[in-house]
């Protein structure tokens, strides 16, 4: 049985771990802390801006990759992306992820802009911004991260991506999730809304302010563990309802993170949170083990293959010093860096080149020297650490993460099969 160490428990690390374990690999998933998936919005971006707004992301991928040499989508083609997203939909189930990756939806954000994304939590689909829609945006007075007036006013003045306008009005209501608490987090509401009793009172309070024919936009707090809570609330209100994701703690992100983590454990993945990987040993061009700095000292994790899924600058996987030397935290890997200055002074201007820096791989996701040979014969990379994308600007992060994770997992499994066959032959 092949042994794999996956480092990092974001979307890429979780998806790869599950795929590997389901195929019979013994997987240890090492992570310093909770992965970035929880901070996400419960949606899956494939390609949102190229730089103009994208309507059909899968169709746009080939042209986008051609216009952006070295972009991860250059090696992760549309067919692989589509197949990988179908796999993610299967893992999360229709209660947590729905949609067609070929077509972008355009959903309201917490500041009332209209964001393109491909797959979404089913609790969000009614928020699709199309001509003639009529929204009432309902705020909860004790949640400080959601201003319904801002959302409604911005939506009202937006020319919609598909043409036309929608109408939105705003209402603020006060239904405390916890008495005596004036400043409740979205998570406190989500936990309270797992309780059917509170759900009924909440729905009554919302129903009182909804007009005929209106679709109700609420902050994304409609239940944490009960994935059907939002649908029941919609039924109780008697109108379509949609969730608008908030800044962290993001409840839709938490739902997905919890579901995938539980799925990984059920697949037999050994999850080891809370410690940093601080070193590694290698011999004959292969990584033999990594050292995990646990409370009682370093512990050696040996494996046949290693997957680096530690993220980018935001997680500390990549760093830049004041001389603009770039550094990868675990293996001190050679990095691809953009030509010229890494950072320019125009804050509102073009994308900062810095963020396209990262690890380069071949099309099996094996880490290689920029433009050259593999660094180790068994070290793969996936997700935010890959060079070439400005993920938040392109809205491409989840698509890259899922497709590269699936590709990396499949490459590791293929290599293991080849090794076994060769072993049997000799």
């Amino acid at each position, binding site marked *: 049985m092949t042994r794999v160490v996956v480092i990092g428990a974001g979307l890429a690390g979780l998806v790869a771990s599950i795929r590997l374990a389901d195929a019979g690999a013994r997987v240890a998933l090492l*992570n*310093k*802390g*909770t*992965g*970035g998936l*929880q*901070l996400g919005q419960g949606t899956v971006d494939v390609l949102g801006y190229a730089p103009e707004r994208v309507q059909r992301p899968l169709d746009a991928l080939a042209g986008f990759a051609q216009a952006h040499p070295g972009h991860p989508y250059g090696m992760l083609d549309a067919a692989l992306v589509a197949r990988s997203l179908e796999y993610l939909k299967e893992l999360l189930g229709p209660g947590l992820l729905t949609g067609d990756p070929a077509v972008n939806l355009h959903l309201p954000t917490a500041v009332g802009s209209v964001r393109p994304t491909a797959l979404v939590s089913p609790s969000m689909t009614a928020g699709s911004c199309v001509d003639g829609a009529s929204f009432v945006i309902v705020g909860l007075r004790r949640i400080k991260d959601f201003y319904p007036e801002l959302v409604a006013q911005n939506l009202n003045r937006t020319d919609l991506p598909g043409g036309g306008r929608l109408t939105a009005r705003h209402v603020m209501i006060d239904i405390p999730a*916890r008495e*005596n*608490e004036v400043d409740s*987090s979205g*998570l406190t509401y989500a*936990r309270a809304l797992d309780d059917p009793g509170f759900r009924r009172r909440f729905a009554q309070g919302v129903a009182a302010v909804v007009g005929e024919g209106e679709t109700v936009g609420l902050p994304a707090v409609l239940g944490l563990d009960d994935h059907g809570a939002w649908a029941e609330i919609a039924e109780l209100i008697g109108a379509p309802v949609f969730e608008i994701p908030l800044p*962290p*703690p993001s409840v839709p992100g*938490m739902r997905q993170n919890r579901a995938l983590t*539980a799925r990984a*454990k059920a697949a*037999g993945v*050994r*999850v*080891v*949170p*809370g*410690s*940093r990987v601080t070193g590694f040993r290698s011999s004959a061009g292969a990584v033999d083990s990594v050292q*995990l*700095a*646990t*409370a*009682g*000292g370093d*512990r050696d994790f*040996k494996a046949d293959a290693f997957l680096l899924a530690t993220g980018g600058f935001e*997680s*500390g996987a990549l760093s830049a010093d004041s001389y603009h030397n770039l550094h990868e935290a675990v293996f001190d890997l050679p990095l691809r860096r953009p030509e010229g200055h890494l950072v320019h002074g125009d804050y509102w201007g073009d994308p900062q080149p810095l963020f396209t820096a990262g690890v380069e791989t071949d099309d099996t996701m094996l880490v290689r020297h920029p433009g050259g040979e593999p660094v180790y014969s068994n070290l793969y990379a996936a997700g935010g650490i890959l060079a070439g994308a400005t993920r938040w600007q392109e809205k491409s992060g989840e698509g890259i993460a899922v497709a590269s994770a699936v590709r990396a997992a499949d490459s590791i499994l293929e290599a293991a099969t080849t090794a076994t066959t060769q072993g049997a032959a000799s």
Partner: protein
Amino acid sequence: MNASDGLDYAATQLARASLDHCVKCTICETHCPVSAVTDKFTGPKYVGPQAERFRHGESVDHSLDYCSSCGACTLACPQGVKIAELNGQARAVMKSDHMPLRDQLISQTTLMGMAMTPVAPVANAALSIKPLRTVIEKVMGIHRDAPMPKANTQTLAGWLKKRPKPTAKATRGTLVFFHGCAGGYFEVETSKKSIEVLEHLGYEVLVPKQGCCGLAEQSNGLFDGATAKVLKLCDELRSAGRDLTIISSSGSCTGMLKHEAHLIMGVDDARLADVGTRIRDIMEFLLELYEAGELPTDFKPIELTAVYHAPCQLKSQGMGQPALEILKLIPGVQAVESEVACCGIAGTYGLKKEKYEIAQAVGKPLFDKVKRVNPEFAMCDTETCRWQIRKGSGAKVEHPVFLVHQAYGLS
């Protein structure tokens, strides 16, 4: 270092430096089991890295006292902020000029065991008398319904003295066993079974005379006493042999030696560093043997489905949940992970009258899961947590080494 330096240390440095790594992502908030059930604690981010910026010795937010020190926040933080440690230090400083007598007494765990053992039946009976517990609550502030250990008539030391010497030759070398106060006085069966499993594997097991690790005092902010205790314990454990691996089946006490005494109280002593890096949780040790291909897996099947709860202070050691991996090797055993950060007791937190209700609310999802999965039996690696889960669920709750012991045919 001088024991009284601990508070100065807590007031001025160490973990404070890590607060600048906080990016306000709120991941810690989502993992906190206390703020999930009460509005009395504003959550680890607010009380930790945020409030820390306003502290100059004194705390501005006294809800800090409601942190249970379970460490779920530090474990979850992807940026490496020592949130729980920051809060433990700030609490010690906050309480230092008005330390309740109650907190000074309930942290004397060895004393309790020594006093109760000779009079075990009397002590057990006394602690089950409601009016007496009411008086204790009024006078001492220990909640009348809080779980209490059952005293044994025989200590581990007594058993070791009386039992026939193991006759099988030790083929794998020598280990030192650290039993903790509870493993010496209250949860003696866990210590016995651990020793027997290690001997079955071919080790000679030395059990030097040993005292308390000081964890309860540390979590109550009594750094002087805790520092003295932990260093004395290090001397005792080191007296058994210089390079020997030390094994413990007291999940939380192991964490005190591995990192808490150093990280929270700033104990910077070569003896502690030596013991802290030589010690292994028993399940961690068995898993290391397994990974090295050195663990016999001739386990007899046990048909059992039961909840396994890894104590918060075991998880905070950053090694995952080794017991889950070991239990997978026993045919027939289905260990269902509790998926709960903490059982609520958090050492002595759940004994205190003002925190008892919170501790019970924190533990409720775990108690419910035990009742749902197997109301008769559950597993957990730390003694105080077992008392809490036993009381909350009604199930028999034992250390996972019980199953290893049975699967090897030793019971």
